[in-house]
């Protein structure tokens, strides 16, 4: 399987991936994403999404589940 660089919000449900980095666009938000648990190399999986426009997302980060909205998910870069 070839590795593809995407943003977290582009993952399909149940598709496992690893965090590769963060956007440089919104440092304040990236700090929060990091503090709550996202880090390079972490295993992530989109567990579910809201019915309208696919937001919010519930994402498994290692053994933790975190809920976030589309704009926040866009800041997380992943390899799948």
């Amino acid at each position, binding site marked *: 399987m070839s590795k593809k660089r995407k943003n977290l919000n582009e993952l399909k449900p149940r598709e496992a991936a690893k965090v590769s980095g963060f956007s440089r666009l919104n440092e304040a938000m990236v700090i929060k994403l*990091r503090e709550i*648990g996202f880090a390079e190399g972490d295993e992530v999986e989109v*567990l*579910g999404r809201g019915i309208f426009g696919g937001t919010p997302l519930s994402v498994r980060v*290692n*053994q933790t589940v975190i809920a976030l909205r589309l704009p926040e998910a866009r800041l997380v870069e992943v390899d799948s």
Partner: protein
Amino acid sequence: MSLGPDSKLRVALIGAPNTGKTTLFNGLTGGRAKTGNYPGVTVERRTGHFHTPKGQQVELVDLPGIYGLAGRTLDEKVAIEAITGQIEGETAPDLLLIFLNATTLRTHLHNVFELKALGRPAALVLNMMDLAKRDGMEIDIAALENALDMPVIPCNAARKAGREALMQSVDALLEDAAVSANQPRKEITAGTLKTMQRDARSLANKVIVREAAMNTLTRQLDSIFLHPLIGPIILASVLFFMFQAVYAWANYPMDFIDEMFGLLHTQVRGIQPDWLGSLLADGVIAGVGSVLVFLPQIIILFAFILLLESSGYMGRAAFLMDELMRRTGLNGRAFIPLLSSFACAVPGIMAARTIESERDRLTTIMVAPLMTCSARLPVYTLIIAAFIPRENVGIFNMQGLVMFALYMAGIFSAVIIAFVLRKTLTKGETQPLLMELPSYKLPGLWDFTLALWQRSWVFLRRAGTVIFAVAIALWFLASFPNSEDGIRGSFAGMIGSVLEPIFRPIGFSLETVIALVPGMAAREVVVAAMGTVYALQGNEDQVANSLSQVLQSAWTLPTALSFLAWYVFAPQCFATIATVRRETNSRGWTIFMVSYLFALAYAAAFITYRTALLFTA
């Protein structure tokens, strides 16, 4: 650094939200602070005391949860200021107990690194070890201790044995804790965090001997509860079932309590001298009794809310509501304070501290009093019982349906008002959502019972104090100077007559207006007040009748509906108004809230009354 048994040491509980800090605090200090299974239950600093086994007196400080030092919400700021000694007139704590949920060690270990970098004496409490074991997780505690250069205490704070083991260690910790100088706080940037996370993840790889399988139950439940289609249907059903249950299950115990007070009233009324019999029967029993009747409903409602809070479903409800909340311009997290407001608006308003944006927080506070709190329950039930037939519509109880509609009226007006506020007074960008969803948990029976008792006790105590006093005061005001020509000749009647013209257009009678005056203090007081006022008016045949039967003959249907509409909006609660004043720190916002709610109440009651008159005329 033991300073002898007389000196008091301060120990602070810090760490990620929902890791068991308040559970430990309650367990050690005998405190009764609210706990729950969602992030952001604790929103303020709280202190309590306990003695270690060696007799050292400890002042324990419970703090809101933080993921790191970059927190910007009010509750996070309080926690950060407390552990860094920035709170006025207070030094930094002598020891930090850093909490970490063992099952999420890998994801949150860097939080410990961040807190450790403060340079304060600290120990790591690895809580919820029982859950970690259940999930098959194995941790090398000694290696973790070595690498962190900090004592690590595996713990299960929800159990007494777990807390006792922790206390034993605290003794040793207090003796050993090296007093180090406060290190200057480094600015937290994405870069420094990245380094910390890298170190923490590599340490996690070393100390986690066996990884936990992700809680499969939580995963399976979430695939149902968070399903885009089924999830919202379940949420709506849960709320609907809750109100139906409050109605249907409480009927029998309520009828029973009602009859008991009826009997008691007849017995006591016979006491001589006549005025004493009247005071006890028409004042105390009619007043306090008419509120106590609602205890079964209150207990059922609180039990449901408690279950939602402690099971982990609360966070899911916020998740499901996020999109709707976003469209009104609010944050999904705002749903938690709003749902809490079903019990009481006061903790609901305080829970808004977890909302980062000041505008979002203000908006949430402004609409929280529209959520139907438990104090409205007696009022709604009383009027519904008197005027809505006890019939079934399909499988649903008609009275329960009306109750549900009243709750919905509150929710919808809150959504609309929030929307309008966000477009005008609290205009601004939409805020992000970032929230951990905890594992589902079944609350322990004992903890559940205790919490239910504590909350119901608040209702009982109010019936015994405020309502008792109001009932007696009102009896005097309504009996003197002259009760010959009915209530109009009394002091209460004179006061009521002044206000009567204001309320005549919305169909309220003099008795209702008189009852509304003490009802400004707290909503359910109006029921007690009407109990007293109508008991005094009652002729001999009516004496044993319950208040709802009395209202049936005294009020018309339009008046009853108008009264219900008034109660959806009217901000009749001193405690709520005082809390809004404190939390907004603004007289302007407080006055704004009280005025817009009274204006809405009057308008809604007016429209309802006039419309109902057209249909019944």
